[in-house]
């Protein structure tokens, strides 16, 4: 494994340093890059996805992030499919995992009493963090968008899921509708095309 210190480096230096480290591997291996801002994490992740490397990132502190890339033999020319495989390998080392997508469509779980529903959804998201098999993606749309924003009781759980490599995506149209665009506190923003793609390509969609 090669470690790259790109703390204090502005884009594109973290990417350039990481590319050099990958060259030094001369084949398969792991490169760990430390950066001090989330935008650099996103640019590194973009590169890994394009190149078909496995990638995960962790937030170590307010201004320290670790991006880990797994380069497989010949993965430079590999397509997107193997990218997803390696990504899963990193999250759950022992093998075959289904592509599970969780679709959170409301700020509460179940129908009946919303006060109870709010407690239930918080419990559900916490319980997700404790599962052996994590979902690949959690989608938040309509009322669900409130759960990824400031003031949500589930932010800590969602941040730890994200650190474990779970993709957290919130519908941008919904954020705009609820006037929450400036308040998103975890994960990325997505659109209906990505949401549709994640749902149709899933092996299993879980709707709490």
């Amino acid at each position: 494994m090669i470690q790259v210190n790109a703390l204090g480096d502005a884009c594109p230096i973290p990417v350039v340093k990481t590319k050099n480290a990958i060259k030094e591997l001369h084949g398969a291996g792991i490169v760990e890059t430390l950066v001090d801002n989330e935008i650099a994490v996103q640019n590194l992740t973009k590169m890994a996805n394009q190149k078909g490397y496995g990638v995960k990132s962790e937030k170590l502190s307010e201004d320290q992030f670790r991006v880990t890339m797994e380069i497989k033999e010949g993965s430079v020319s590999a397509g997107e499919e193997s990218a997803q495989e390696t990504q899963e390998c990193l999250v759950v080392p022992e093998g075959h995992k289904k592509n599970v997508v969780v679709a959170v469509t409301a700020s509460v779980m179940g129908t009946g009493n919303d006060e109870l529903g709010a407690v239930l959804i918080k419990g559900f998201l916490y319980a997700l963090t404790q599962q052996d098999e994590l979902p690949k993606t959690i989608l938040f749309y309509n009322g669900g968008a409130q759960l990824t924003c400031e003031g949500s009781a589930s932010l800590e759980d969602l941040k730890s899921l994200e650190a474990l490599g779970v993709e957290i995506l919130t519908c941008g149209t919904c954020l705009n509708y609820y006037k929450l665009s400036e308040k998103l506190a975890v994960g990325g923003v997505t659109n209906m095309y990505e949401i549709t793609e994640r749902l149709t390509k899933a092996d299993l969609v879980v709707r709490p």
Partner: protein
Amino acid sequence: MSEEKITFCKGGGCTAKLGAQALNRVLSLLPKGERDPDLLVGYSSRDDAAVYRLTDDIAFVQTLDFFPPMVSDPYTFGQIAAANALSDIYAMGGEVKTALNIVCFPEKWDLNILGEILRGGSEKVIEAGASLAGGHSIADADVKYGLSVTGIVHPDHIWQNNTGIPGDKLILTKALGVGILCTADRVSEAPLEGMKAAIRSMTTLNKEAALCCRNYGIHACTDVTGFSFLGHLHEMMDDGRLSCKVYSDQIPVLPGAAECADEFLLTAAAQRNRNHVGSFVRFEGIPFAMEEVLFDPQTSGGLLVAVGEKEAQGLLADLRAKGLPAAIVGEICEKEESGAEITVS
């Protein structure tokens, strides 16, 4: 002095802009005084410059722009910073009248460097037909330079950015990719030809482009700068009132920019642009490098104009005759309830 020149460029230009998201948060909290009816374009519209009506025939246009160097040559930097600042007046349909220098410069550096920056800037102000009327300088750790510019415009002929009409064609007057190329150049990976073309593009005033546009019925206009082609196009969609199609195969791109994007020589600003407007955009089978070019922050970018379909070919021919790499890059459509605001195909 040669040692200091090495650190002259730390990655600047419009890539140094604060993110739109962060900025909007602060701006929305500012106290707003009583609305002056003569302030025709102000904060609220997110346009390129402010416009204030003096009489029924004359309004003044005001703008300010400055940033750290994005190229290593001080004279070239001065030209680019000035061309970039002057551009906001052209984007409003105005005529440039006066400019003031804004400069930050390290006290211990060779003053010849400062002289070169200011020489580049004043040459562009003269080329614009304006007068350099003064300025303000500050001793600072890093170099920054730009202009505060004042121009005039007829109050009835202001080109706002959000007044396009469905059916309009979108014309872009400069090629994209200067952010990627300057970033690649910082790590010595930009192709020489590409960098030369980027500098030519950034030092070109939008004066000729604006003059061509005046002969046509322009419905909306902006200049493409830090928020990228897609970011500024999003502002033209008037908060979702309009939608548009972008013809990706018509987008003029600087030589080498796509190749550098494929090497992931990307700016932080481009990723911020993607985070800010990505959810409004639908890409239909667009290569990664082209996506990056469309999110690339431009320094001293071209005008992006909405003009009626019948006039589009005539305007395009005029722009090309002036040697500009202009192209019809898309069209404005009615808002579609279920569709994306911007569809790139």
